[in-house]
């Protein structure tokens, strides 16, 4: 997360003070859009970020513990619902977006010579790998926080993170 919202703001928001809620939403929205860009197609990112904030507004009075972990847990659920509604898995949906990329199994030389944007490379990762990249690097959550959001052990998140970066390196040709 760019910068965590100040604690007094969060406290006021928990009491459902409308002005504090408005300020909190304004702060969270760009972070959520950034997160969604890693998880879903670009055109859906803003709508889903908005959906997360709607859920935040409805239930913030019962929120305890780390705010970022709580918000991104909601965001993860919104992503799951989004793919469920579309009747597809994350991987299928994202692979549609990168259909035009070269097949790494064939034409290896062509693939190496072609400059692949980092964003497109992230889109080739598995859903779990994209989530860990979004939480750890785009949002700056700690391993423990990311583990809480992903409902995994910190050790599992560390391995996932290692595999995600290794896969990215491979996709980008290993020479960056």
């Amino acid at each position, binding site marked *: 997360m*760019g910068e965590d919202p100040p604690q007094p703001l969060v406290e006021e928001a928990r009491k*459902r003070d*409308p*002005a504090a*809620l*408005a300020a909190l*939403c*304004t702060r969270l*929205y*760009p*972070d959520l*859009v*950034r997160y969604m*860009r890693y998880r879903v197609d670009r055109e859906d*990112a*803003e*709508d*889903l*970020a*908005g*959906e997360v*904030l*709607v859920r935040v*507004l*409805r239930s913030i009075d019962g929120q305890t513990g780390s705010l970022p972990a709580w918000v991104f847990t909601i965001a993860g659920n919104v992503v799951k619902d989004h793919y469920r509604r579309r009747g597809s898995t994350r991987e299928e949906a994202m692979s549609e977006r990168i259909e035009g990329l070269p097949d790494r199994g064939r034409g290896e030389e062509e693939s190496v010579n072609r400059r692949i944007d*980092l964003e497109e490379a*992230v889109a080739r990762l598995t859903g779990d790998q994209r989530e860990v*990249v979004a939480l*750890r*690097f*785009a949002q*700056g959550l*700690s*391993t423990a926080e990311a583990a809480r959001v992903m409902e995994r052990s910190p*050790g599992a998140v*560390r*391995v996932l*993170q*290692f*595999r995600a*970066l*290794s896969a*990215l*390196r491979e996709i*980008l040709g*290993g020479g*960056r």
Partner: protein
Amino acid sequence: MRREEERAEILDRCLERMRLGEDPERVLEEHPEAAEEIRPLLVLAEELASRPAPAPAGEGLVRSLIRMAADPAARPARPRRARGGLLNLRVWARAAVLVLAVFLAGWGAVSASANAVAGDILYPVKRFAENVRFFLTVSPDEKAELRISFSAERLREAVRKMQRGEGVDEDLLREMLEEARKAMDGIERMPAGSREILALRAAHLSDYQRETLDRLRARGGEREEKVLRSYRDLCGRRGSWMREVLSGGRGPGPDGARPGNGNRLRRWRERCPGRPGGCR
């Protein structure tokens, strides 16, 4: 510990140091055998973290908040009487409206879009802003006024498109009629004074629209002329229809419906000329 888990642990320790603004090399010095594999991953991690954040337009947020505040659950079970607007919403829905206000205040594109017509880049922004404005309006009188202004705006857009040589946009003319008709929705729940003012305003609008359409000459041949004539005639009949409500039940409405009380007004409204299912 398996090799992969070991590397994952080293990588994570390096990343944690970087997150705290410290040098990860101290960790790699302890594990020289892993340094060659880990260093490029740290570069990638840094690149990912330093990617500029997108500049969201706020449309997704606005759309979601509008949906949220329009949700029936946003209204308390017992709305407080004599209090309009925000106070008739639950606190989270009020917050949604406040967030909306924050976004729209900074949304310069809305004002820049004022003269846009269908097909222009900013036209969707203009229509979206109209929807937001309509949603934020609570009073039935003001909602009806907005409908009338939207109807007038659709005609202005249609005229502007014709002046540009883009022909007759029938969709805009249809929307013009539809907005004017919707302005009369709920008229039976209005007090008599407001009802008459609204009917008068709507009748004048229809007269103005009929006269404007009468003066326009289509360049697209007989078919476009026919379209213009049909909308002109509908506006003429709409004007007469709207005046029926001013009779306050003393005169018959179209097809014999008397607009004197709620039920009759509703029946009268359902017989609006140009309305799907109404008299043509």
